[in-house]
């Protein structure tokens, strides 16, 4: 049936045929041979690798105004949750824990030297966050959080929390360590 679709498309509109065929071919090649993605060509690899069993699981617990915890009760809150948790995870990893940023390293050490014309043409461009962004982040985060929790936020604490799953399915905290604190001046 897909074959007859492409045959009819070829007969009706050759430009469209080439466009559609190329789109599918690039998608398949990018998934099967090169494992690479550039929007709108994607790899559909989510949950494709085995997830190993863990003794404990860790996540960031965000506490604001001293005793209130940022929690998301419903999965449908994901668009807000991603804004608040993904950005904080990135901030903690790169700024607080000072982990290396492979994207930044590859861009500076490998990509830019090989593309000097690009560098000359777009001097101000970078594809990574550095101190310029990280220094402004806590203030932005506080304001965004205020909007979500609908109250004035003056203080934020971030804990790395580790939990374990007991045999009856109960989840118990193993430890929780304060790793970052922000106070409004």
């Amino acid at each position, binding site marked *: 049936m897909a074959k007859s679709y492409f045959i009819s498309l070829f007969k009706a509109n050759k430009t*469209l045929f080439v466009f559609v065929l190329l789109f599918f071919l690039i998608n398949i090649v990018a998934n099967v041979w090169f494992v690479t993605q550039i*929007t709108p060509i994607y790899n559909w690899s989510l949950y494709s690798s085995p997830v190993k069993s863990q003794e404990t699981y860790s996540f960031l617990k965000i506490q604001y105004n001293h005793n209130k915890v940022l929690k998301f009760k419903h999965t449908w809150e994901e668009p807000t949750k991603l804004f608040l948790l993904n950005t904080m995870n990135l901030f903690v990893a790169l700024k607080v824990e000072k982990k290396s940023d492979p994207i930044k390293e590859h*861009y500076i050490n490998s990509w830019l030297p090989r593309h000097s014309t690009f560098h000359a043409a*777009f001097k101000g461009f970078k*594809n990574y966050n550095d101190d310029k962004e990280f220094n402004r982040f806590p203030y932005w985060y506080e304001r965004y959080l205020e909007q979500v929790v609908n109250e004035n936020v003056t203080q934020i604490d971030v804990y790395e929390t580790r939990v374990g799953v007991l045999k009856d399915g109960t989840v118990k905290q193993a430890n929780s360590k304060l790793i970052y604190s922000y106070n409004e001046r």
Partner: protein
Amino acid sequence: MSDSSTALKKKVVGRLVFFFFFLSLSFRLFLHATPSHWLEPVLFKIDFDFTYWLFMLSGLPDIIIQNKIGSILFDIFLLLTAFLCIILPDKNLICILFGCLFFIYALSYNTYIVHHAHPLTIMTLASTPFFFRNDRVWNFLWEGFRYYVCYIYTMSFFWKSFIGKSLLFWNMGINSFEQNLVEYIFYYPDTMISSFYKFLIVHPFILNVGAITIFLLEGFMVVGFFTKKLDRVLFFIPILIHVATYFFSDVFFMEMLVGIFAFLSFEKVKKIVQHFPLIAY
């Protein structure tokens, strides 16, 4: 399918698709997830995705994200064009305008949540057939989109079977469940759903069988390449998959469900018109 049938299908399917877009955007507006609520975000992620590079180099983020008035106007135009597309799905210029705005929204959202999620950009693809005034071209592209939806799930199954091989890993269900849901159970130990989750942790067999079933359902979508006779089944499979991942993986991929409209046959469209004549007006 005759020209008038194609035109009717385009109008009805268009209204359903753009209504879906409108709902999704309204929901995102409510959740502070549209540019006017982002308060000029600072962290970003564009990696080596050159589409995102182009987006950043275009200067658009400075106008619509990093500027309060620009971001408000962007939200207004985005929602307004989505609404106009519901009323006038056959006016291709409005659809082009909306498709472009939505694509910019998808790129912006992914850039500033520092995660390149797929669902929104896939939604953009659903709007592209409506960029064409010619009904025959629309019909070909819409059918192409139907194959693309089949391709997404089939490729996902292919990854799990032959590349990452998680399909062969028995404890995939329980391990991914724990990884994604321990935080919820920790924060909300006494809810009804937490009790159910704890029951599932004690009985991992159910989760492992469930994970394999979902993977196989993804694989089943391959039949869409060979026949349209099972489209009424294929219509429900993405719903099953995304409802299951909503509850058991704590991921919200409901916007991917824009793809199910590609499985509406002309007969189904006629039935919809019989029940809701206004949709074809």
